């Protein structure tokens, strides 16, 4: 009787071990499955990012920006490209926006941008545009200094 109990115990123990192993195996597969799904999601997200990058690029097309700026009467002003510094020859890398010689203010020399530190990260806002030629659309447009060319 004792032996039967022992044998039964061994059988039950083996069965339990087998079930335990099966459960572990199942869990491993489930985790693998989740990893695969996560991988697929990453791939999908990556592809969505590619698509959005293209969409952003399309919507920042220079022609569209120019048209929108004209429509909204916004004057575009230059910005210095990221990472740019003063030219090695100490010269013409000015980012100073056009001044207004016609209004009696002398245009600063390109080599010495007036009131601007060399290599400053962003151009100052432009002064009022010359009014000697009102026929020109850009000169006549009222200035709203909240937009830049850079995107």
């Amino acid at each position, binding site marked *: *009787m004792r*032996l*039967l109990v022992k044998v*039964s115990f061994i*059988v039950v123990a083996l069965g339990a071990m087998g079930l335990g192993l099966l459960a572990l195996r199942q869990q491993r*597969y489930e985790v*693998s*499955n989740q*990893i*695969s*799904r996560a*991988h*697929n999601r990453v791939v999908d997200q990556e*592809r969505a990012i*590619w*698509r959005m*990058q*293209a969409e952003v*690029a399309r919507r920042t*097309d*220079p*022609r569209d920006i*120019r048209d929108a700026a004209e429509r909204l009467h916004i004057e*575009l*002003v*230059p910005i*210095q*490209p*990221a*990472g*740019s*510094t003063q*030219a*090695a*020859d100490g*010269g*013409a*890398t*000015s*980012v*100073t*926006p*056009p*001044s*207004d*010689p*016609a209004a009696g203010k002398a*245009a600063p020399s*390109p*080599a010495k*941008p007036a009131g601007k530190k060399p290599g400053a990260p962003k151009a100052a806002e432009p002064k009022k545009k*010359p009014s*000697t*030629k009102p*026929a*020109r*659309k*850009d000169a006549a447009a009222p200035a709203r200094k909240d937009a830049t*060319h850079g*995107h």
Partner: protein
Amino acid sequence: MDTDAPAPAPAAPAGIDESTQSSRTRGWARVVTCCTAALLCLTLVRVAQLKTVPSERLDAAAGRRTSVRPELAQRGGIIDQRGRPMAVSLVGWRLFCDPAFIYESGWDKAKKASKTDPNAVAECDPFRDAAIALAPVLRQAPQAVHELLQKNAERRYVVLAQEIDDSQADALRHLDLDGVRLEPKLVRDYPAGPLASQLIGKVGFEHTGQAGVEFAFNRQLTPTDGKVKALRDAFGRTLWINREDYVPGDDGQDVRLSIDLVIQEIAERHLTAMVDEVNAGGGRLIVMDADNGDILAMCDVLRERAGWKEATHDPSRRIHPALGRNRNFTDPYEPGSTFKSFVWARATQLGLAKPSEIIQLPHGPYVTPFGRTIHDVKYPGPVSWKTVLIKSLNGGMASVALRMSHEQMEQMVRDYGFGQKTGMGIPGESGGIVTSAAKWTKYTQTSVAMGHEVAVTPIQMVRAFSSFARPDGTIVQPRLVLPSGPVQPHAFVPGVKQVVTPTVLAEAKEAMAGVVEEGTARKAQSDWYQMYGKTGTAELAVPGQKGYDRDRYVASFLAAAPLEHSRIVVLCVIDDPDKRKGHFGGSIAGPVVRDVVDETLKYLGVPYDQDPSKRSKTAGGGAKPAKVAQAR
């Protein structure tokens, strides 16, 4: 003592009973053990059988348990100087089908349906049904799809559409047709549309470069696809991917161009407007940063005019505009008078003429000592050497060119880089045409002085002219692709060769500023920036014959600005304009350059340097604003 009396049965010993019970239990235990062992063995054998040699029925039911698919990697992008995407890759879809499966599946369905509908088999045409379902999604006629399916009825893989958009893909998923599948593939997107299309080029169906930068830098841009082996369930769903079965892809490298999309847009807008206005066969325009040779904009417009026998053809553009050759590199042209600036500078540098020296010219055509008659538009008589350049007098140039030796003239041409490719890595680049020393004659000497008998590409012209725009008189190597890693835009890059001395540089710039102020390029005078340059109006050579067509021209203007610290060099070439609408370089190419210079320098934040008094004079009616500027 009764010995016969039966002896009482001996009581069974307790130990024997226990042993019998024990042996019985052991027997049962053996049986249970054996059964369990047998069961386990059978299970193991069955598992082994299922794993190794499953029955056909089970195998078919389980289907393919693994599938291998490529892991798409992204082709490198093409971006502009400021990082704006000009070409990017996306995942799109290719639509394919299995006609044989469509046919079998259709008939199976019809046979099943025949139990309830007796006409089901008689009316069955799987290809017709598939074509009717697919045609609206593919935006094709059902007959065309039906024909395609029938033609390839035996095949197992037929591409129905190389590229379909997302809405089409969604519609097809909704239809859930048997034997019709979507396959992911990379598609190339050009967010800037036609801007710089001849420069960027295009990729083919296999996502490899076919033209332009896409072709030239294909190796750098090309990605390496990865590989995924996935275990799937009976419904084809991914169960899992083992680590060893996943090989990640390697994205292609980005190519960063020196082009600035905003300047490119400015240049294309003004060039296209003028080409349309003068009904020209085409136009080319380059904007180069004088400090470092960065090509900020490069345009190439080609038109086909009804009723004209065009001088330039590009059949590839009929297939797709982006497949056309980039004529700024490939098509040399006779520069005409724009070439005089180089001859003038070299003659001055050699001491053969001084800017103030009076060149004795007749009040009529100049006749060379060897009898060649040189014609001009006007014959002002004796003028200074500086005025020869300002008024672009052929006679004056020829007379001073004859003071130069053939070797000096040829050396000048070579020094400025003509006759040699720029080495920018663009396929099909032409080195231009320069007469060899052996064939150089006195006719060549006088022709070259006027920009004839020499053919140059626009990129060679801006490279040569950069020597005037740089403070040290050196030629800069043009740069279309920026090096990888951090780049300092507008940083000064040393030139490759000094061709003009500082003294002559100042004299040449002064003379060329005169060209804009009082010479042939008065219409190019800007209200905001002082410009210097040289106009050119060359007659077109008659194709396949000797000589020139007297009514067809190439008009050009080559200039730099601002005057003191020049920032950009701009060349505009208008090919074969309608003579009735204007054909002089100063009249049609000049205003384009002026408008491009104005807008570009403002965009770059370069301070105005034009004298206000001159500006008001100009605004008062000196130079007519171009129609392209008015039309903005």
